[in-house]
């Protein structure tokens, strides 16, 4: 973990947020180091997506968020969009857009108003579409693609921004295992180049491949530490009610489902 303040990509200081009248986040304080991959995990309704939105400046929240050492509110809109790229979960996308045009939208923050895409823009779009193996369908409409193929196009849109900080909410939704593995390699390569990646992942085993992990429950951060630290793994097992076990397999940490039921006292029962 980095301690120097210039190494923090995103910092949250006591942020609270609500959706409608129900409070979702309760004073979250978090320092996410630059040049590392942090995954956010927690049970359903823990506030993971809301936290990611708050960090991206996409929803009003109390407290303060710092991006690369500067308060988010002080960033100019376009400048922020070039530094931070966000991919949402279950965002609606028009079926009529062509794949290439979708990826090109990632270049919007780089383009002056009304000017056509430059050579750099086209190169960035091609690189992004090739990175997610979506280049072959660049002339197809989004509506003609399967869920996983669509997700790869949306990932390419995120990559085309070429931002320093990438925030992804369930980036592996609908992806098949080979493309999940490709995504892991891609994120590793990006992080090696100095990019900061923050991802909300449902699949705990995939989340364990990150550098660091933030464990959340009920709108609070329970633990933040390296994925291979025993304390992090203990927090992870605890937040999921000990219904998963973290084990090492072929040098990788995996979460395996626990098939033992618990009674109300918390002592283990024999399987039913």
């Amino acid at each position: 973990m980095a301690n120097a303040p210039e190494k923090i990509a995103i910092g949250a200081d006591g942020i609270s947020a609500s959706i409608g009248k129900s409070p979702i986040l309760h004073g979250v304080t978090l320092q996410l180091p630059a040049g590392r991959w942090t995954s956010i995990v927690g049970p359903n309704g823990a506030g993971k997506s809301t936290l990611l939105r708050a960090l991206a400046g996409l929803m009003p929240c109390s407290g303060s968020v710092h991006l690369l050492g500067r308060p988010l509110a002080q960033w100019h809109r376009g400048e922020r969009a070039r530094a931070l790229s966000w991919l949402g979960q279950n965002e609606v996308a028009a079926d009529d857009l062509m794949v290439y045009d979708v990826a090109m939208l990632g270049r919007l923050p780089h383009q002056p108003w009304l000017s056509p895409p430059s050579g750099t823009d086209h190169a960035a779009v091609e690189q992004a579409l090739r990175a997610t193996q979506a280049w072959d369908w660049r002339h197809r409409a989004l509506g003609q693609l399967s869920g996983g193929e669509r997700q790869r196009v949306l990932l390419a849109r995120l990559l085309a921004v070429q931002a320093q900080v990438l925030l992804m909410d369930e980036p592996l939704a609908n992806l098949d295992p080979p493309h999940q593995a490709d995504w892991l390699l891609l994120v590793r390569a990006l992080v090696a180049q100095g990019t900061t990646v923050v991802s909300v992942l449902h699949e705990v085993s995939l989340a364990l491949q990150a550098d660091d992990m933030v464990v959340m429950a009920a709108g609070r951060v329970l633990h933040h530490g390296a994925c291979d630290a025993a304390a992090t793994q203990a927090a992870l097992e605890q937040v999921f009610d000990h219904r998963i076990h973290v084990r090492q397999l072929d040098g990788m940490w995996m979460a395996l489902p626990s098939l033992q039921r618990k009674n109300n006292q918390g002592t283990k029962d024999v399987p039913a």
Partner: protein
Amino acid sequence: MSLSVARRGRWLGWALVAASMLLVPLGTGVGSVGLENLWPALWGDGSDSASRAARDMAWQIVWDIRLPRTLGAWCAGALLGLAGAVAQGLFRNPLADPYLLGSASGASLGVATALALMGGGAGMVGSAKGAAVTLVFSGHWLVRLGLTGAAFAGAVLAVLLTLALARGVQHTLRLLLAGVIVGVVLGAFTSLILLLSPDSLQAMQAFLLGSTGFVGWTSCLLMAGVWGLCLVAAWALSRVLDGLALGESTAHSLGLPLAPLRAALVAVLALATGTAVAQTGLIAFVGLAAPHLVRAVAKVPHGRLMGLASLMGAVLLAAADLLARGLIAPQELPVGVLTAVLGGGYLLWLMHRRTGPGGLL
């Protein structure tokens, strides 16, 4: 395949321009007096007074009535097609209609109020039947201007009311619901006014059905000017619509200043719809169908969709106007009836295709 997809938009554009070039001269030849009678009169030598009178009459029919009417239908269609493309992008709903923000019901209420205030006499102007058309250009242009102004003012006020009820343009769903509420309430007021002033019923009906029959050069130029303005504005704002197509949060994360740009798009929508409705009444389905037909042929970003949907709407309405005049000549159908029937059929087919086994959704 890839090349053909990339070129389709351009081909569609040229095809629509060609169709327009064909429709406009055709439009001058169809109506109660056929081209076979007009043609010799137009080029008559004018040696005697009877021939001169026939020539003047023929020129008047072509120049003062049919040409502005055909061009007017083209312009109104272009405005509606553009408004439809903006509405569908803005509300991120492929079935959105330019009349959604209450502009249609507002314009109706404006016209009904004006008719009731002026009494039944104004009815002759609105009824757009054969000889009544000439009244527009003789004595009653003030009435005509009044009705147009009332329709436009009604449309703009209704859009402002919708925006006030929706408390701004940020929430698409709230905006849609407010538009529906305004539409229902203003529609009820319109019915009430018509009940109290039965004299204006016939003229009102012509407005509600939509008609290109009383479009003169002034209306034509007005619509063309507004269309040019709206097209440039919509094209300049089209990136917002592209961004919004990926969801509101994504658009926001891309650094687009959504609130002011959305307000500008709503203004374009209201101006284009209000202008078209004020000149031609409530012409159904053109605004809804034009962007769809374009998208069925070519998947283009919103920037190009604006121009293509405009051309498509223009060709649709100019063709419908031609049919309305030609189908049962020398009588004519209100063009709104024709677009409603054709558009309704198209919408049904679209619904069937969307839900059917080979559907897109």
